[in-house]
């Protein structure tokens, strides 16, 4: 955007009364940085729209899968590791935010090499996060058969005991524990169970699907966030190349472009805090 805007120069900080009187930057930020802030504000409202819709749909459902049951696999075939993988993902994102801060700081010292180095690390962090997300999605889609319109993750409302093929009783489970309806040879194979507590004690039931809004919201919202990470990585890459080529050095404005993309990158991290909260913690 900056190539064409050189015609409209902001007035240099003239000594003319207080900032709000014109001829000055009342928010003490260049218009480029302000534009980024206002863009992020609007983007925050896009995400809020999604998260608030999530909230409405979740309250709209009588049951909801337990995150510590759904997200309990780890690459390498590990199971029963609740929330561990997503914690790793969160760390990666935090780390990449930290390296981004370092890049901005080096920019303010006009240290070209330092900026490029820390930006490189940030890009690596972004890519690893995307890799993790790709694995998580693949696992959910191909192994656990969650999709935009089916959600085999459910939650038991009462205590119960499984009933085997031959009619004998199998393992027991507690109310509130999660289950996954399995698929065998391309066919859904819901288990039968006998309820052993509550008003319906004694009845035989079959596992039902969980609320499908869960899967759909998960893919749409984490997908939208992932898209932001992806575009962030692209912008970082372009700007890093520009840093290396020395464009910003000539501008002598403390690598403001790096600062702007930094704002965007931290914002993506900030959104993740809330994605993490609603999908994995609550």
């Amino acid at each position, binding site marked *: 955007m900056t190539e064409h805007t050189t015609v409209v120069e902001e007035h240099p900080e003239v000594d003319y009364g207080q900032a709000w009187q014109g001829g000055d930057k009342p*928010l*003490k*930020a260049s218009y480029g940085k302000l534009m980024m*802030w206002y863009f992020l*504000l609007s983007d925050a*409202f896009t995400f*809020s729209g999604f998260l*608030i819709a999530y*909230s*409405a749909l*979740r*309250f*709209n*459902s*009588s049951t909801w899968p337990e*995150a*510590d049951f759904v997200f309990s696999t780890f690459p390498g075939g590990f199971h029963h590791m*609740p929330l561990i993988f997503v*914690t790793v993902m*969160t*760390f990666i994102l*935090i*780390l990449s*935010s*930290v390296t*981004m*801060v*370092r890049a901005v*700081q080096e920019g*303010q010292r006009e240290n070209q090499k330092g900026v490029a180095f820390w930006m490189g690390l940030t890009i690596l962090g972004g890519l690893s996060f995307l890799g993790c997300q790709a694995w998580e999605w693949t696992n959910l889609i191909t192994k656990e058969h969650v999709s935009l319109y*089916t*959600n*085999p993750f*459910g939650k038991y409302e009462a205590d119960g005991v499984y009933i085997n093929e031959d009619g004998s009783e199998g393992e027991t489970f507690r109310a*509130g524990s999660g289950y996954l*309806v399995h698929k065998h040879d391309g066919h*859904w194979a*819901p288990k*039968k169970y006998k309820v052993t507590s509550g008003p*319906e004690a004694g*009845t*035989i*039931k*079959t596992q*039902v*699907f969980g*609320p499908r809004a869960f899967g759909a919201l998960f893919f749409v919202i984490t997908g939208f966030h992932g898209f932001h990470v992806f575009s962030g990585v692209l912008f970082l890459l372009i700007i890093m190349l520009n840093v290396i080529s020395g464009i910003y050095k000539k501008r002598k404005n403390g690598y403001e472009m790096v600062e702007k993309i*930094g*704002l965007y990158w*931290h*914002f993506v*991290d*900030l959104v993740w*805090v*809330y994605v*993490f*909260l609603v999908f*994995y*913690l*609550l």
Partner: protein
Amino acid sequence: MAHLSYEESKKVVFKGLIFLGVITIVEVAIALLAKGQIIEGFHLNKTFYSILMAVFSLIKALYILGEFMHLKYESKALRVGMAIPLILLVWAAIAFSQDGYTFEQRRERSGDEHFPEKPPVAEHSLHDVAH
């Protein structure tokens, strides 16, 4: 950084890493505890747990905004300008959630508490089995 020296601000970065990392670990630990993953049969009160987690997330978000995005060191006008619009979302969140809840209650009252989802296999329809 306008208000900190280079060395100081480098330290802030390191502190931020530790701070956010520790909060995340605490969050996950409490989550597992609350859901009975650590102590068999022990569960935290749901409302209390949700509020706790929301507070932790808010702290993290404010930290990222303040230190990483540098908002703490920007002009007051910019800070206020960003904060006021976000307040609007509070009412939106309350109204949307409350309305979603109303819908769920209506379904429950109309006797369809397990609507919407059916069992995956047609011949084992929920109602055949339950009644």
